[in-house]
Protein backbone atom coordinates (compact mmCIF):
# COMPACT_ATOMS: atom_id res chain seq x y z
CA UNK A 1 0.00 0.00 0.00
CA UNK A 2 1.48 3.27 -1.06
CA UNK A 3 2.11 5.94 1.51
CA UNK A 4 -0.23 8.87 1.03
CA UNK A 5 0.23 12.51 1.92
CA UNK A 6 -2.35 15.24 2.22
CA UNK A 7 -1.52 18.55 0.56
CA UNK A 8 -3.48 21.64 1.49
CA UNK A 9 -3.79 24.42 -1.08
CA UNK A 10 -3.79 28.12 -0.17
CA UNK A 11 -7.58 28.11 -0.56
CA UNK A 12 -7.86 25.17 1.87
CA UNK A 13 -8.56 22.34 -0.51
CA UNK A 14 -7.07 18.95 0.41
CA UNK A 15 -5.31 16.76 -2.16
CA UNK A 16 -4.43 13.14 -1.30
CA UNK A 17 -1.27 12.14 -3.13
CA UNK A 18 1.05 9.15 -3.23
CA UNK A 19 4.49 9.77 -1.76
CA UNK A 20 6.22 8.67 -4.97
CA UNK A 21 4.32 11.24 -7.00
CA UNK A 22 4.87 14.18 -4.74
CA UNK A 23 8.49 13.37 -3.95
CA UNK A 24 9.43 14.78 -7.32
CA UNK A 25 9.13 18.12 -5.59
CA UNK A 26 12.47 18.65 -3.87
CA UNK A 27 10.80 21.02 -1.43
CA UNK A 28 8.30 18.40 -0.26
CA UNK A 29 10.85 15.60 -0.37
CA UNK A 30 12.97 17.57 2.07
CA UNK A 31 9.97 18.15 4.31
CA UNK A 32 9.27 14.43 4.36
CA UNK A 33 12.90 13.56 5.05
CA UNK A 34 13.04 16.10 7.85
CA UNK A 35 9.92 14.60 9.38
CA UNK A 36 8.10 17.90 8.95
CA UNK A 37 5.39 16.37 6.80
CA UNK A 38 2.94 15.19 9.40
CA UNK A 39 -0.76 15.65 8.84
CA UNK A 40 -1.72 18.13 6.16
CA UNK A 41 1.09 19.86 4.30
CA UNK A 42 0.09 23.49 3.79
CA UNK A 43 1.28 24.94 0.46
CA UNK A 44 1.19 28.49 -0.88
CA UNK A 45 -0.37 27.30 -4.11
CA UNK A 46 -3.99 27.74 -5.19
CA UNK A 47 -6.09 24.60 -5.70
CA UNK A 48 -6.42 25.24 -9.41
CA UNK A 49 -2.63 25.44 -9.83
CA UNK A 50 -1.92 22.57 -7.46
CA UNK A 51 -4.21 20.35 -9.52
CA UNK A 52 -2.08 21.16 -12.57
CA UNK A 53 1.13 20.49 -10.65
CA UNK A 54 -0.16 17.06 -9.63
CA UNK A 55 -1.33 16.32 -13.15
CA UNK A 56 2.25 16.90 -14.32
CA UNK A 57 3.80 14.88 -11.49
CA UNK A 58 1.49 11.89 -12.09
CA UNK A 59 2.32 11.86 -15.78
CA UNK A 60 6.04 11.91 -15.03
CA UNK A 61 5.66 9.22 -12.39
CA UNK A 62 3.74 7.05 -14.83
CA UNK A 63 6.55 7.37 -17.32
CA UNK A 64 9.33 6.37 -14.90
CA UNK A 65 7.45 3.34 -13.56
CA UNK A 66 6.82 2.04 -17.06
CA UNK A 67 10.44 2.43 -18.00
CA UNK A 68 11.52 0.42 -14.98
CA UNK A 69 9.27 -2.47 -15.96
CA UNK A 70 10.59 -2.58 -19.50
CA UNK A 71 12.66 -5.49 -20.60
CA UNK A 72 15.18 -4.80 -23.29
CA UNK A 73 13.42 -6.75 -25.99
CA UNK A 74 11.40 -4.59 -28.30
CA UNK A 75 12.24 -1.62 -26.17
CA UNK A 76 13.01 0.70 -29.00
CA UNK A 77 9.62 0.48 -30.61
CA UNK A 78 7.89 0.72 -27.29
CA UNK A 79 9.99 3.73 -26.37
CA UNK A 80 9.08 5.42 -29.60
CA UNK A 81 5.37 4.82 -29.04
CA UNK A 82 5.69 6.10 -25.50
CA UNK A 83 7.51 9.19 -26.70
CA UNK A 84 4.59 9.86 -29.04
CA UNK A 85 2.13 9.44 -26.18
CA UNK A 86 4.07 11.80 -23.97
CA UNK A 87 4.35 14.35 -26.78
CA UNK A 88 0.63 14.22 -27.27
CA UNK A 89 -0.01 14.62 -23.56
CA UNK A 90 2.45 17.51 -23.32
CA UNK A 91 0.87 19.27 -26.29
CA UNK A 92 -2.54 19.10 -24.66
CA UNK A 93 -1.07 20.31 -21.37
CA UNK A 94 0.65 23.22 -23.18
CA UNK A 95 -2.45 24.22 -25.10
CA UNK A 96 -4.47 24.47 -21.92
CA UNK A 97 -1.83 26.66 -20.34
CA UNK A 98 -1.48 28.87 -23.39
CA UNK A 99 -5.21 29.56 -23.20
CA UNK A 100 -5.09 30.47 -19.52
CA UNK A 101 -2.07 32.61 -18.74
CA UNK A 102 -3.11 33.12 -15.11
CA UNK A 103 -2.59 29.44 -14.52
CA UNK A 104 0.55 29.42 -16.64
CA UNK A 105 2.27 32.10 -14.57
CA UNK A 106 0.98 30.65 -11.32
CA UNK A 107 2.30 27.28 -12.35
CA UNK A 108 5.69 28.79 -13.12
CA UNK A 109 5.81 30.29 -9.64
CA UNK A 110 4.62 27.03 -8.09
CA UNK A 111 7.19 24.91 -9.92
CA UNK A 112 9.84 27.29 -8.66
CA UNK A 113 8.51 27.24 -5.10
CA UNK A 114 8.05 23.46 -5.05
CA UNK A 115 11.42 22.95 -6.74
CA UNK A 116 10.27 20.91 -9.73
CA UNK A 117 13.11 21.52 -12.17
CA UNK A 118 11.65 19.47 -15.04
CA UNK A 119 8.33 21.32 -14.90
CA UNK A 120 10.04 24.69 -14.53
CA UNK A 121 12.19 24.00 -17.56
CA UNK A 122 9.20 22.76 -19.58
CA UNK A 123 7.23 25.91 -18.75
CA UNK A 124 10.12 28.27 -19.44
CA UNK A 125 10.49 26.68 -22.87
CA UNK A 126 6.75 26.99 -23.42
CA UNK A 127 6.79 30.73 -22.67
CA UNK A 128 9.95 31.19 -24.75
CA UNK A 129 8.22 29.54 -27.71
CA UNK A 130 5.30 31.91 -27.24
CA UNK A 131 7.61 34.93 -27.22
CA UNK A 132 9.93 33.90 -30.06
CA UNK A 133 9.60 35.96 -33.20
CA UNK A 134 6.94 38.32 -31.79
CA UNK A 135 7.09 42.08 -31.90
CA UNK A 136 7.21 44.04 -28.60
CA UNK A 137 3.67 45.34 -28.97
CA UNK A 138 2.27 41.84 -29.46
CA UNK A 139 4.17 40.60 -26.43
CA UNK A 140 2.92 43.40 -24.22
CA UNK A 141 -0.64 42.61 -25.19
CA UNK A 142 -0.21 38.88 -24.85
CA UNK A 143 1.38 38.98 -21.43
CA UNK A 144 -0.24 42.08 -20.00
CA UNK A 145 2.93 44.14 -19.68
CA UNK A 146 2.89 47.90 -19.34
CA UNK A 147 5.17 49.87 -21.67
CA UNK A 148 7.04 52.21 -19.32
CA UNK A 149 9.29 53.69 -22.01
CA UNK A 150 8.63 57.08 -23.51
CA UNK A 151 8.22 56.91 -27.30
CA UNK A 152 11.67 58.56 -27.69
CA UNK A 153 13.34 55.98 -25.47
CA UNK A 154 11.68 53.13 -27.29
CA UNK A 155 12.72 54.52 -30.62
CA UNK A 156 16.32 54.87 -29.45
CA UNK A 157 16.49 51.22 -28.35
CA UNK A 158 14.93 49.94 -31.54
CA UNK A 159 17.28 52.04 -33.64
CA UNK A 160 20.37 50.79 -31.82
CA UNK A 161 20.45 47.35 -33.36
CA UNK A 162 17.60 47.66 -35.79
CA UNK A 163 19.91 47.40 -38.75
CA UNK A 164 21.72 44.32 -37.65
CA UNK A 165 19.50 41.48 -38.74
CA UNK A 166 17.39 40.50 -41.63
CA UNK A 167 15.77 37.18 -41.01
Amino acid sequence: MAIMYALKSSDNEIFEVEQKVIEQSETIKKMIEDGAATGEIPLQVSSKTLAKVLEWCKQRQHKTVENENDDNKGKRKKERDEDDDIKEWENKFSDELKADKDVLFDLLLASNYLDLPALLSFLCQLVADMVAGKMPEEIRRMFNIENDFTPEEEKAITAEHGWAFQP
Partner: protein
Amino acid sequence: MNFLLFLKMNFSTSKRKGRASEPASKERAEERVANDASMSDLPFPILMDIFSRLPINTILQIRSVCKTWFALLSDPYFAEIHLARAPLSLMILTNFCQMICSNSLEPLYKMNQNQKQNGQNIPGKRFSLLTSCNGLLCSHEFSYKKEVVSICNPILGEYLVLPQLERNRVDRRIRGFGFSQSSKQYKVIQTLNYKNQAVESNNFQVEIHTIGMDTWRNIGDLPYQLIQPYYGALLNGVFHWYAHSHDNKTAFMCSFDLGKEEFQSFPGPPIQGFGKCRPANSISVGVSGGFLYLCDGFLESNFDIWIMKNYGVKESWTKEFVIVNPTISKLQRVFGSMYILNYRENMSKEATEDTELVMLLGSEDLFAYKVTSQAVRKPKSTCIQSNYQAIPYIPSLVSVKMLQRKRVHWGFDLYVTPDSLNF
Protein backbone atom coordinates in the same frame (compact mmCIF):
# COMPACT_ATOMS: atom_id res chain seq x y z
CA MET B 1 25.96 54.32 -24.39
CA ASN B 2 25.13 57.14 -22.00
CA PHE B 3 21.56 56.51 -22.74
CA LEU B 4 21.91 52.85 -21.83
CA LEU B 5 23.52 53.71 -18.55
CA PHE B 6 20.83 56.21 -17.80
CA LEU B 7 18.15 53.61 -18.25
CA LYS B 8 19.95 51.11 -16.06
CA MET B 9 20.40 53.58 -13.23
CA ASN B 10 16.87 54.75 -13.52
CA PHE B 11 15.76 51.18 -13.33
CA SER B 12 17.86 50.24 -10.37
CA THR B 13 16.54 53.04 -8.21
CA SER B 14 12.87 52.91 -9.03
CA LYS B 15 12.11 49.37 -10.03
CA ARG B 16 13.87 47.53 -7.26
CA LYS B 17 11.08 48.46 -4.96
CA GLY B 18 8.67 46.95 -7.44
CA ARG B 19 6.91 43.65 -7.25
CA ALA B 20 9.12 41.77 -9.63
CA SER B 21 12.17 41.84 -7.40
CA GLU B 22 10.40 40.30 -4.42
CA PRO B 23 10.59 36.59 -3.92
CA ALA B 24 7.46 34.59 -4.50
CA SER B 25 5.65 35.17 -1.26
CA LYS B 26 2.31 34.30 0.21
CA GLU B 27 0.99 37.83 -0.17
CA ARG B 28 1.94 37.91 -3.79
CA ALA B 29 0.36 34.60 -4.57
CA GLU B 30 -2.92 35.80 -3.14
CA GLU B 31 -2.74 39.19 -4.73
CA ARG B 32 -2.25 37.54 -8.09
CA VAL B 33 -5.55 35.75 -7.91
CA ALA B 34 -7.35 39.09 -7.89
CA ASN B 35 -5.28 40.81 -10.62
CA ASP B 36 -4.82 39.95 -14.24
CA ALA B 37 -1.75 37.83 -14.75
CA SER B 38 1.23 39.77 -16.02
CA MET B 39 4.53 38.34 -17.06
CA SER B 40 6.18 41.20 -15.16
CA ASP B 41 5.20 39.44 -11.94
CA LEU B 42 7.57 36.58 -12.54
CA PRO B 43 10.78 36.62 -10.50
CA PHE B 44 13.94 37.69 -12.35
CA PRO B 45 15.60 34.27 -12.38
CA ILE B 46 12.58 32.74 -14.11
CA LEU B 47 12.41 35.58 -16.63
CA MET B 48 16.11 35.14 -17.39
CA ASP B 49 15.63 31.40 -17.80
CA ILE B 50 12.86 32.07 -20.33
CA PHE B 51 14.82 34.73 -22.21
CA SER B 52 17.94 32.58 -22.37
CA ARG B 53 16.02 30.15 -24.60
CA LEU B 54 15.25 32.75 -27.25
CA PRO B 55 17.05 33.29 -30.53
CA ILE B 56 19.26 36.34 -30.59
CA ASN B 57 17.15 38.39 -32.99
CA THR B 58 14.12 38.03 -30.73
CA ILE B 59 16.23 39.11 -27.75
CA LEU B 60 17.34 42.29 -29.49
CA GLN B 61 13.76 42.99 -30.49
CA ILE B 62 12.10 42.47 -27.13
CA ARG B 63 14.45 44.73 -25.20
CA SER B 64 12.00 47.52 -25.88
CA VAL B 65 9.04 45.74 -24.26
CA CYS B 66 9.58 47.45 -20.89
CA LYS B 67 12.35 48.78 -18.66
CA THR B 68 12.57 45.63 -16.58
CA TRP B 69 13.15 43.49 -19.64
CA PHE B 70 15.64 45.95 -21.04
CA ALA B 71 17.68 45.85 -17.85
CA LEU B 72 17.56 42.05 -17.60
CA LEU B 73 18.54 41.53 -21.21
CA SER B 74 21.42 44.01 -20.96
CA ASP B 75 22.84 42.39 -17.84
CA PRO B 76 26.24 40.67 -18.22
CA TYR B 77 24.92 37.80 -16.13
CA PHE B 78 22.18 37.26 -18.68
CA ALA B 79 24.80 37.19 -21.43
CA GLU B 80 26.45 34.32 -19.55
CA ILE B 81 23.36 32.16 -19.17
CA HIS B 82 22.28 32.90 -22.72
CA LEU B 83 25.69 31.85 -23.99
CA ALA B 84 25.46 28.56 -22.11
CA ARG B 85 22.36 27.68 -24.15
CA ALA B 86 23.21 29.33 -27.45
CA PRO B 87 23.75 26.88 -30.31
CA LEU B 88 26.98 26.72 -32.23
CA SER B 89 26.57 28.45 -35.58
CA LEU B 90 28.78 29.70 -38.35
CA MET B 91 29.88 33.21 -39.20
CA ILE B 92 30.10 33.45 -42.94
CA LEU B 93 31.70 36.25 -44.83
CA THR B 94 31.20 36.75 -48.55
CA ASN B 95 32.02 39.66 -50.79
CA PHE B 96 28.54 40.99 -50.27
CA CYS B 97 27.45 40.19 -46.81
CA GLN B 98 28.07 38.74 -43.45
CA MET B 99 25.75 36.07 -42.36
CA ILE B 100 25.13 33.64 -39.59
CA CYS B 101 24.19 30.09 -40.38
CA SER B 102 23.03 27.35 -38.05
CA ASN B 103 25.27 24.33 -37.73
CA SER B 104 22.86 22.40 -39.90
CA LEU B 105 23.65 24.87 -42.67
CA GLU B 106 20.38 26.80 -42.53
CA PRO B 107 20.90 30.56 -42.88
CA LEU B 108 19.76 32.38 -39.73
CA TYR B 109 20.59 36.03 -40.11
CA LYS B 110 22.13 38.23 -42.69
CA MET B 111 23.81 41.57 -42.45
CA ASN B 112 24.44 43.38 -45.69
CA GLN B 113 27.70 45.18 -46.07
CA ASN B 114 25.94 48.43 -46.95
CA GLN B 115 24.05 48.32 -43.68
CA LYS B 116 27.22 48.71 -41.68
CA GLN B 117 27.04 52.11 -40.11
CA ASN B 118 29.31 54.25 -38.00
CA GLY B 119 31.87 51.52 -37.58
CA GLN B 120 29.49 49.59 -35.40
CA ASN B 121 30.23 46.35 -37.07
CA ILE B 122 33.47 44.51 -37.62
CA PRO B 123 36.06 47.24 -38.04
CA GLY B 124 37.83 47.90 -41.30
CA LYS B 125 37.06 46.94 -44.83
CA ARG B 126 39.74 44.42 -45.60
CA PHE B 127 39.82 42.03 -42.76
CA SER B 128 39.78 38.34 -42.30
CA LEU B 129 38.24 36.26 -39.57
CA LEU B 130 40.79 34.40 -37.48
CA THR B 131 38.97 32.62 -34.72
CA SER B 132 36.11 33.12 -32.30
CA CYS B 133 35.21 32.41 -28.70
CA ASN B 134 31.89 32.92 -26.89
CA GLY B 135 30.46 35.02 -29.69
CA LEU B 136 33.48 37.29 -29.96
CA LEU B 137 35.36 37.32 -33.23
CA CYS B 138 39.08 37.79 -33.46
CA SER B 139 39.75 39.43 -36.80
CA HIS B 140 42.79 40.60 -38.60
CA GLU B 141 43.19 43.61 -40.81
CA PHE B 142 46.22 43.96 -42.92
CA SER B 143 47.26 47.08 -44.72
CA TYR B 144 50.41 48.51 -46.23
CA LYS B 145 51.77 49.97 -43.03
CA LYS B 146 50.08 48.32 -40.14
CA GLU B 147 48.54 45.16 -38.96
CA VAL B 148 45.51 45.44 -36.72
CA VAL B 149 44.06 42.63 -34.69
CA SER B 150 40.72 43.29 -33.07
CA ILE B 151 38.09 41.57 -30.98
CA CYS B 152 34.48 42.31 -31.76
CA ASN B 153 30.96 41.24 -31.06
CA PRO B 154 29.25 41.75 -34.42
CA ILE B 155 25.81 41.41 -32.85
CA LEU B 156 26.30 44.24 -30.39
CA GLY B 157 28.48 46.17 -32.84
CA GLU B 158 31.23 46.55 -30.25
CA TYR B 159 34.92 46.11 -30.82
CA LEU B 160 38.34 46.81 -29.43
CA VAL B 161 41.73 46.87 -31.06
CA LEU B 162 44.55 44.91 -29.48
CA PRO B 163 47.73 46.81 -28.61
CA GLN B 164 50.02 47.25 -31.59
CA LEU B 165 53.47 45.81 -31.63
CA GLU B 166 56.35 48.16 -31.04
CA ARG B 167 58.57 46.48 -33.57
CA ASN B 168 57.12 45.87 -36.94
CA ARG B 169 59.79 43.68 -38.47
CA VAL B 170 58.76 40.49 -36.82
CA ASP B 171 56.95 37.45 -37.99
CA ARG B 172 53.92 37.66 -35.75
CA ARG B 173 51.22 35.03 -35.64
CA ILE B 174 48.07 34.98 -33.58
CA ARG B 175 47.69 31.37 -32.42
CA GLY B 176 44.58 31.39 -30.27
CA PHE B 177 41.83 33.39 -28.62
CA GLY B 178 40.01 31.92 -25.67
CA PHE B 179 38.32 32.28 -22.33
CA SER B 180 39.63 30.90 -19.09
CA GLN B 181 36.96 29.92 -16.58
CA SER B 182 39.48 29.86 -13.74
CA SER B 183 40.72 33.40 -14.24
CA LYS B 184 37.50 34.69 -15.88
CA GLN B 185 39.58 36.37 -18.54
CA TYR B 186 39.74 36.42 -22.30
CA LYS B 187 43.24 36.01 -23.65
CA VAL B 188 44.99 36.06 -27.00
CA ILE B 189 48.18 34.09 -27.58
CA GLN B 190 50.69 35.00 -30.28
CA THR B 191 54.11 33.80 -31.35
CA LEU B 192 56.83 36.09 -32.60
CA ASN B 193 59.96 35.42 -34.55
CA TYR B 194 62.48 38.23 -34.60
CA LYS B 195 63.90 37.63 -38.03
CA ASN B 196 67.11 39.52 -37.61
CA GLN B 197 68.46 37.11 -35.04
CA ALA B 198 70.93 34.43 -35.93
CA VAL B 199 69.18 31.14 -35.23
CA GLU B 200 65.76 31.32 -36.68
CA SER B 201 63.95 28.09 -36.15
CA ASN B 202 64.06 27.76 -32.39
CA ASN B 203 63.58 31.37 -31.73
CA PHE B 204 59.85 31.76 -31.39
CA GLN B 205 58.67 33.73 -28.41
CA VAL B 206 55.23 33.42 -26.86
CA GLU B 207 53.24 36.45 -25.83
CA ILE B 208 49.91 36.72 -24.08
CA HIS B 209 47.46 39.55 -24.11
CA THR B 210 44.67 39.67 -21.55
CA ILE B 211 41.65 41.51 -22.98
CA GLY B 212 41.18 44.74 -21.11
CA MET B 213 44.90 45.23 -20.41
CA ASP B 214 47.25 47.50 -22.35
CA THR B 215 50.16 45.22 -23.16
CA TRP B 216 51.44 41.93 -24.48
CA ARG B 217 53.35 39.87 -21.90
CA ASN B 218 56.25 37.71 -22.97
CA ILE B 219 56.12 34.28 -21.34
CA GLY B 220 59.26 32.82 -22.89
CA ASP B 221 60.22 30.48 -25.72
CA LEU B 222 57.77 28.41 -27.67
CA PRO B 223 58.72 24.87 -26.58
CA TYR B 224 57.53 23.08 -29.73
CA GLN B 225 56.16 23.77 -33.20
CA LEU B 226 52.40 24.06 -33.09
CA ILE B 227 51.28 22.23 -36.20
CA GLN B 228 47.50 21.86 -36.14
CA PRO B 229 45.05 23.51 -35.72
CA TYR B 230 46.37 26.95 -36.50
CA TYR B 231 44.29 28.55 -33.76
CA GLY B 232 44.38 26.43 -30.60
CA ALA B 233 41.37 24.16 -30.09
CA LEU B 234 39.76 25.49 -26.93
CA LEU B 235 38.16 23.23 -24.33
CA ASN B 236 37.87 23.86 -20.58
CA GLY B 237 40.00 26.98 -20.78
CA VAL B 238 42.83 25.03 -22.41
CA PHE B 239 44.15 25.21 -25.99
CA HIS B 240 45.11 21.95 -27.71
CA TRP B 241 47.43 21.33 -30.62
CA TYR B 242 49.10 18.58 -32.56
CA ALA B 243 52.77 19.54 -32.26
CA HIS B 244 56.22 18.60 -33.48
CA SER B 245 59.48 18.94 -31.61
CA HIS B 246 61.70 21.71 -32.97
CA ASP B 247 64.02 19.15 -34.59
CA ASN B 248 61.05 17.49 -36.34
CA LYS B 249 61.88 14.14 -34.77
CA THR B 250 58.85 13.52 -32.57
CA ALA B 251 55.17 14.32 -32.80
CA PHE B 252 52.69 14.55 -29.94
CA MET B 253 49.74 16.52 -28.66
CA CYS B 254 50.20 19.50 -26.39
CA SER B 255 48.01 21.86 -24.44
CA PHE B 256 48.23 25.38 -23.12
CA ASP B 257 46.28 26.27 -19.99
CA LEU B 258 45.02 29.85 -20.30
CA GLY B 259 44.79 30.26 -16.54
CA LYS B 260 48.23 28.90 -15.65
CA GLU B 261 49.79 30.04 -18.95
CA GLU B 262 51.82 26.86 -19.31
CA PHE B 263 52.49 24.46 -22.16
CA GLN B 264 52.18 20.75 -21.39
CA SER B 265 52.18 17.54 -23.33
CA PHE B 266 48.72 16.04 -23.72
CA PRO B 267 47.67 12.39 -24.21
CA GLY B 268 47.15 11.60 -27.89
CA PRO B 269 45.13 8.81 -29.55
CA PRO B 270 46.57 5.30 -30.01
CA ILE B 271 47.30 5.67 -33.71
CA GLN B 272 50.11 3.55 -35.02
CA GLY B 273 53.19 5.65 -35.59
CA PHE B 274 51.59 8.73 -34.00
CA GLY B 275 54.94 9.75 -32.53
CA LYS B 276 56.45 10.22 -35.98
CA CYS B 277 56.05 13.59 -37.62
CA ARG B 278 53.52 13.83 -40.41
CA PRO B 279 52.53 16.56 -42.81
CA ALA B 280 50.29 19.17 -41.22
CA ASN B 281 47.46 18.54 -43.65
CA SER B 282 47.03 14.91 -42.66
CA ILE B 283 45.86 15.67 -39.13
CA SER B 284 43.17 17.94 -37.69
CA VAL B 285 42.53 18.62 -34.05
CA GLY B 286 39.42 20.38 -32.83
CA VAL B 287 36.60 20.57 -30.33
CA SER B 288 32.96 19.81 -31.04
CA GLY B 289 30.05 19.37 -28.67
CA GLY B 290 32.40 19.58 -25.70
CA PHE B 291 34.68 16.81 -26.97
CA LEU B 292 38.19 16.93 -28.30
CA TYR B 293 38.57 15.20 -31.66
CA LEU B 294 41.39 14.28 -33.96
CA CYS B 295 40.93 13.53 -37.66
CA ASP B 296 43.57 11.26 -39.05
CA GLY B 297 43.84 11.50 -42.82
CA PHE B 298 47.22 9.90 -43.17
CA LEU B 299 45.92 6.99 -45.20
CA GLU B 300 44.77 8.29 -48.53
CA SER B 301 41.82 5.95 -48.87
CA ASN B 302 39.88 7.12 -45.85
CA PHE B 303 40.12 9.20 -42.76
CA ASP B 304 39.33 8.37 -39.19
CA ILE B 305 37.73 10.60 -36.61
CA TRP B 306 38.89 9.94 -33.07
CA ILE B 307 36.95 11.31 -30.12
CA MET B 308 38.34 11.74 -26.61
CA LYS B 309 35.36 10.51 -24.58
CA ASN B 310 36.70 11.48 -21.17
CA TYR B 311 38.70 14.62 -21.21
CA GLY B 312 42.36 14.07 -20.39
CA VAL B 313 42.08 10.26 -20.23
CA LYS B 314 44.35 8.70 -22.86
CA GLU B 315 42.48 5.36 -22.90
CA SER B 316 39.21 7.11 -23.74
CA TRP B 317 40.26 8.04 -27.30
CA THR B 318 37.82 6.15 -29.53
CA LYS B 319 37.74 5.80 -33.29
CA GLU B 320 34.14 6.82 -33.85
CA PHE B 321 33.85 7.48 -37.58
CA VAL B 322 35.71 6.10 -40.55
CA ILE B 323 34.98 8.29 -43.53
CA VAL B 324 35.40 6.64 -46.87
CA ASN B 325 34.66 9.39 -49.30
CA PRO B 326 37.29 10.33 -51.84
CA THR B 327 36.02 13.91 -52.17
CA ILE B 328 36.38 14.63 -48.49
CA SER B 329 39.70 12.85 -48.19
CA LYS B 330 41.04 14.88 -51.07
CA LEU B 331 39.71 18.14 -49.67
CA GLN B 332 41.20 17.44 -46.31
CA ARG B 333 44.60 17.06 -47.86
CA VAL B 334 44.15 20.38 -49.64
CA PHE B 335 42.95 22.38 -46.67
CA GLY B 336 44.37 20.53 -43.73
CA SER B 337 42.22 21.96 -41.01
CA MET B 338 38.81 20.46 -40.51
CA TYR B 339 36.12 21.64 -38.13
CA ILE B 340 33.37 19.29 -37.03
CA LEU B 341 30.43 21.48 -36.14
CA ASN B 342 27.78 19.29 -34.63
CA TYR B 343 29.26 16.29 -32.85
CA ARG B 344 27.31 15.06 -29.86
CA GLU B 345 27.93 12.27 -27.43
CA ASN B 346 27.31 8.75 -28.79
CA MET B 347 26.56 10.17 -32.21
CA SER B 348 27.71 7.15 -34.17
CA LYS B 349 26.06 4.67 -31.80
CA GLU B 350 22.68 6.36 -32.06
CA ALA B 351 22.99 7.28 -35.72
CA THR B 352 19.90 6.95 -37.90
CA GLU B 353 19.80 7.41 -41.65
CA ASP B 354 19.26 11.16 -41.17
CA THR B 355 22.26 11.69 -38.92
CA GLU B 356 24.64 14.16 -40.49
CA LEU B 357 28.06 15.28 -39.48
CA VAL B 358 28.54 18.88 -40.56
CA MET B 359 32.09 19.75 -41.43
CA LEU B 360 33.99 22.80 -42.49
CA LEU B 361 37.20 22.17 -44.37
CA GLY B 362 39.68 25.00 -44.27
CA SER B 363 37.51 28.06 -44.01
CA GLU B 364 35.65 27.74 -47.24
CA ASP B 365 34.28 24.31 -47.84
CA LEU B 366 31.20 23.45 -45.94
CA PHE B 367 29.26 20.24 -46.22
CA ALA B 368 27.15 17.72 -44.39
CA TYR B 369 28.10 14.07 -44.42
CA LYS B 370 25.48 11.37 -43.89
CA VAL B 371 26.97 9.02 -41.33
CA THR B 372 25.27 5.85 -42.51
CA SER B 373 25.08 6.28 -46.29
CA GLN B 374 28.33 8.29 -46.58
CA ALA B 375 26.60 10.74 -48.91
CA VAL B 376 27.67 14.38 -49.01
CA ARG B 377 25.39 17.39 -49.12
CA LYS B 378 26.29 21.02 -49.79
CA PRO B 379 24.55 24.05 -48.23
CA LYS B 380 21.55 25.23 -50.22
CA SER B 381 21.78 28.96 -49.68
CA THR B 382 22.76 30.79 -52.85
CA CYS B 383 24.64 33.29 -50.76
CA ILE B 384 27.32 30.80 -49.83
CA GLN B 385 27.86 28.96 -53.06
CA SER B 386 31.32 30.27 -53.66
CA ASN B 387 33.98 32.58 -52.32
CA TYR B 388 33.18 32.66 -48.71
CA GLN B 389 35.05 32.48 -45.49
CA ALA B 390 33.41 30.72 -42.58
CA ILE B 391 34.32 30.07 -38.99
CA PRO B 392 32.47 28.31 -36.18
CA TYR B 393 30.82 30.95 -34.05
CA ILE B 394 28.16 31.27 -31.35
CA PRO B 395 26.00 34.40 -31.59
CA SER B 396 26.14 35.88 -28.12
CA LEU B 397 25.54 39.02 -26.07
CA VAL B 398 28.97 39.02 -24.43
CA SER B 399 29.94 42.67 -24.33
CA VAL B 400 33.40 43.71 -25.40
CA LYS B 401 32.96 46.98 -23.56
CA MET B 402 32.23 45.14 -20.34
CA LEU B 403 35.53 43.30 -20.63
CA GLN B 404 37.29 46.60 -20.56
CA ARG B 405 35.88 47.73 -17.29
CA LYS B 406 34.91 46.29 -13.98
CA ARG B 407 31.73 44.31 -13.98
CA VAL B 408 28.63 46.11 -12.91
CA HIS B 409 26.71 44.29 -10.24
CA TRP B 410 23.04 44.68 -9.68
CA GLY B 411 21.65 44.98 -6.23
CA PHE B 412 19.86 41.66 -6.25
CA ASP B 413 20.90 38.05 -6.04
CA LEU B 414 20.41 35.88 -9.04
CA TYR B 415 20.41 32.17 -9.18
CA VAL B 416 20.13 29.65 -11.96
CA THR B 417 17.98 26.57 -11.78
CA PRO B 418 19.95 23.30 -11.81
CA ASP B 419 18.52 22.59 -15.22
CA SER B 420 19.88 25.67 -16.85
CA LEU B 421 23.32 25.02 -15.39
CA ASN B 422 23.32 21.65 -17.06
CA PHE B 423 25.05 22.52 -20.33
